[in-house]
């Protein structure tokens, strides 16, 4: 089992910081020009300078690019002293092809923020497990193109990646599950939503996890996170269904060190998943290993918008009792 590495905190960024965009999953070429320019302009509004990995526009029949190209861009982004942080273009399916080719020593010696979600879960957790560097599950480069409903996402990106202070993760006032990248003007925002407290309790621990099926692809490998005293964050996309989520969760519970999980946060499910609070409660209740683990679901991270930025390898405390929820990111 991997030993937990000492935490390495990347330097925070601010106005004037240089962000390198890389495409370790799918290609930049997949984005429409509108989305690409929208993201560039929004990030520039925040004062960031941008550059792109030289292979980001390469695209193969899987909408991705060669392992060599993706590794080259990843390594260059970490080794380039002028680069302060790294954003991934978008998610996909094949980040785990890269794991055995990543130079983890290079990353350990050049720690910097790397942020993305979905398939980036694989890289974020592997880097943290191998080096101790805090990585970030949060908006991709492409996410910044969103015209409406991105304020919460940007606010929490700043809280995690710009500021140093601990912060509370509040529930967003509204959310949406629109294909915004197809029609930015046709958006439906849903209000009056709240956290789902599935199990009460309090916990503190090291954040691990992200997209469930991506996380599960690391099981049994040297890139798997030690679960001792961890807070597991889990999210899924539209491909998931309640029974499939159940299977993935059960698979995590079968990890030999699952008893080290002190608390669980579950990201808001997409509508297409057909997951409901009632079904999720039923799934949780079937698993005796979870009976004393505080669990809060319908949290703002994952594939609906907005999405908070959460530090993998950072520290989180949670309290859930009597309809009262406090989620606090202590170290990030």
């Amino acid at each position, binding site marked *: 089992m991997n*030993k*937990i*590495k*000492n*935490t*390495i*905190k990347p330097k925070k960024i601010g106005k004037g910081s240089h962000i390198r965009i890389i495409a370790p999953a799918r290609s930049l070429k997949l984005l429409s020009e509108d989305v690409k320019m929208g993201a560039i302009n929004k990030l520039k509004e925040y004062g960031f300078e941008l550059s792109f990995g030289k292979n980001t526009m390469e695209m193969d029949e899987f909408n991705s690019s060669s392992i060599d190209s993706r590794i080259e861009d990843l390594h260059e982004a970490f080794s380039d002293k002028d680069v302060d942080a790294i954003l991934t273009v978008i998610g996909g399916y094949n980040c785990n092809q890269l794991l055995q080719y990543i130079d983890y020593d290079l990353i350990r010696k050049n720690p910097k923020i790397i942020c993305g979600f979905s398939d980036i879960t694989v890289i974020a957790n592997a880097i943290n497990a191998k080096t*101790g560097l805090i990585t970030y599950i949060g908006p991709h480069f492409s996410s910044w193109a969103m015209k409406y409903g991105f304020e919460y996402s940007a606010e929490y990106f700043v809280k995690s990646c710009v500021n*140093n*202070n*601990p912060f509370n993760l509040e529930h967003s006032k509204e959310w949406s599950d629109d294909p915004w990248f197809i029609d930015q003007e046709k958006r439906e925002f849903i209000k009056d939503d709240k956290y789902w407290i599935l199990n009460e309790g*309090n916990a*503190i*621990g*090291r954040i691990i996890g992200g997209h469930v099926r991506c996380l599960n692809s690391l099981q049994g490998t040297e890139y798997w996170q*030690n679960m*001792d*005293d961890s807070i597991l964050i889990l999210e899924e996309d539209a491909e998931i269904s309640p029974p499939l989520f159940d299977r993935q969760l059960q698979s995590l519970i079968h990890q030999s*060190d699952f008893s*080290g999980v*002190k608390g669980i946060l579950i990201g808001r499910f997409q509508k297409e998943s057909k997951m409901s609070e009632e079904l999720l409660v039923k799934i949780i209740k079937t698993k005796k290993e979870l009976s004393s683990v505080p669990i809060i679901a319908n949290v703002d991270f994952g594939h609906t918008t907005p999405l908070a930025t959460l530090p993998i390898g950072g*520290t989180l*405390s949670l*309290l859930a009792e009597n309809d009262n929820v406090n989620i*606090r990111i*202590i*170290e990030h």
Partner: protein
Amino acid sequence: MEKLKFESIESKSENNIYDKEKFSPEKAKEYVDDLTSKFKDFYSSIGYNEEPSVQISSGIDPTVRFIGSHISVFKHYLIGDNVINPGVFMEQPCIRTRNADKLLDDSFSPQWGSYFLSIGTLASPDRLKEACNEAFDFFERKLGIARENLLIRINSADEDLMETCRERCDNDNLEIDTQKPEYYRHKIGEKGITGRNFNIALRNPNGAGFADVGNIIVLENSEKKLGIETALGTSVILKQLYGLDHVQDCNPVIGLEKIKDQMMRRKFEDSIITSTILLSEGLRPFGGSARNRLLKKYMNSLIYFKDKSGLDMHELQTIISEFEKKEIVDSDKSISNYMIEYIKALEGDKK
């Protein structure tokens, strides 16, 4: 945040045989840096190479949880039987956790703090006489300590060490066979490697008695000598030179002077110092490893003494923040923030 100042405690300098100025806790780090710098200058000037220090929790020596001596960093030279000539030197932050289990015992009075800075050398095995003379020169010439204020505590069975010391020291400087046999013997956690040592003591600043500040150790296996180690503690040397009440005065935690119970104050200091140092290295008070659990133990002690002393969370944060600013090089000044968050969480665990 208000800046804390020492209120009253300044160590006395009356009748200091070393003619040292009054020790100012505000300048404690400068005294430590000055001594370390003199040590490094001295060994560098006689051809030794500097070995870089490592993190206390680096895990480079699997025989210990935390680096407790520079020998952990030097071990590879001994194991490979390739100690370079004339030798290597280094400064190494260390933590020894012998206090950890007893901090909550109200009757326990710690003589040592857990955290200290060790300075030491490893010379090639054929240089016993030279290595000893270099150590004496460091004290006498570099630090200006008169020979009459140095004492060698030595075992007559170690004839090679006796011969070397006799060449340099008068009978007045030698204290032979006064200690238990194990005092003169060393282990470094490596099978087949043992050490024979004599200790160097400095006269107490009031002139009466001596206290150990380091030792010289012949490290060897059953066949031959492997290297000559000189091991010195900065805080014990400064304690002797300046007449400090306690070795922890070399890393003072400003703001705790109002605690009248000195025993509690020292243990509270130890908890703050050790927790801050380990957190600054990226260790966290959770996780299943023994190192994580030890940090948690120090942080639980910190909570115990906070409650016992009546400090509130804001006062504690101010104290930790000042210590962090003063002691942690390259700190982003955030350790005190998340230490308070961890304390709150650990307090919540107990409820």
